[in-house]
């Protein structure tokens, strides 16, 4: 295993491969957890620059948790406990030619409810649930990413689904 041969990530090739492997996951994680208002793309960059600055102290195996922890902490430093609002793509593909105004109105209402429902979920629930539903990640993958057990991921996702449906019904 080549990764056991090195105990630092100070080589640009290694650093780049780590970036290719983790940056998108890190970005999605930050986005679903904290929303778009805190600019997850910048945090990903900052976290990787931090990794480069500390490259001699971080082994390739530790790099992933280093990145997630650093990025998460940077977000927490900025987050002011406001409700996370996820924007949805406003322009929808016009697949249907027979949309009645009522249908469009109902659709809009449904999305608004969904948005509120997502905002009401806990950070842990929302992150796991959206990584699963939107990014199509298997429970195992999410568990690896967040360093938690598969069971816990399952619980979070199922809990999120339940809570979301309840909120939508209530509204």
């Amino acid at each position, binding site marked *: 295993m080549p990764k056991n041969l090195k105990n630092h990530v100070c080589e640009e090739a290694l650093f780049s491969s780590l970036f290719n492997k983790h940056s998108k996951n890190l970005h999605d994680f930050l986005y679903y957890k904290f929303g778009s208002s805190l600019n997850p793309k910048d945090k990903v960059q900052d976290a990787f620059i931090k990794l480069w600055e500390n490259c001699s102290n971080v082994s390739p195996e530790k790099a992933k948790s280093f990145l997630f922890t650093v990025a998460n902490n940077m977000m927490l430093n900025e987050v002011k406990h406001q409700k996370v609002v996820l924007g949805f793509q406003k322009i929808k593909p016009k697949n249907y030619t027979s949309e009645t105004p009522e249908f469009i109105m109902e659709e809009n209402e449904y999305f608004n409810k969904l948005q509120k429902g*997502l905002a009401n979920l806990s950070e842990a629930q929302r992150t796991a649930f959206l990584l699963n539903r939107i990014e199509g990640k298997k429970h195992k993958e999410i568990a690896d990413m967040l360093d938690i057990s598969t069971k816990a991921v399952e619980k979070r*996702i199922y809990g999120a*689904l339940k809570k979301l449906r309840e909120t939508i019904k209530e509204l």
Partner: protein
Amino acid sequence: MTREELILKWLDNDLSPQEFEAFKALEDYDELIKLSNSLKEFKAPEYNTSEELEMVLSKTRSYSKTSNNWLKPLLKVAAVLAICFSAYYYTTTLDTIIETLASEKTNIELPDNSLVNINALSSIVYNKKKWSNSRDLKLNGEAYFKVEKGSSFTVKTDHGKVTVLGTEFNVKQRENLFEVVCYEGSVRVDYKSKSKILKPGDNFLILDGKYIATEKESTINPTWITNESYFKSLPFKFVLNEFERQYNLIINSEDIDDSVLFTGNFTHDNLEQALKAITIPLNLTYNIQSNQIVLIPRD
């Protein structure tokens, strides 16, 4: 299989075709599918990994990591050293100034062990650092030099320049008066265009800009070194000026003629005796008023 298990499996995208049929049969199938599809609209914005990587790499390359590690502390150290060095250089190359006040004499040793006795109200200026290259000093007032043998030793005054190789001599520079007396070795005096070599006992005196020939000095030291001032045929005002310097007081000589020539000496340790020594020969008397001494002719 329960409804919850089915939903969980569906969530994990792990339904077999059979299970999928069962899942389809669930009453909330439509709702779940609608929810699931709608959620897709909340997808995170596109993330272009290679583009982002380029940006990060450009940032990490823009600062050289190695130089950052040692350059900063090194610069700090260098700055401190530079300050120390410049302070040291500045203080050591500064001219050394030695000054005496009225009625004060001092002895100093120059870097080459030459000795200088400085009379009252005089100053010498020299540079310790450059001393080994050029033994130059500036004198204002009166001083007696015992110069160690070596390269030329120059005393500069406002009136003229005295150059020696290794000798004992006295330089006296006062307003309108410039006197050099050689006690040992030989001394060269440059005064304006005039230049004279003095042998032991020789005397070079300029009074009011004129050269005055005097007879040979018989003493081996200037008398002021032994706390006496000796004058030979000098106008009385020079005697009074010297008196003021040695005793730090003011002499009022309005009522007397201070241009008469005076030969004699006065001591630096006893005011009354000294006053008598300078007044009696000229048939004068004196009055002490606070810090001022008024000289008046004796009836």
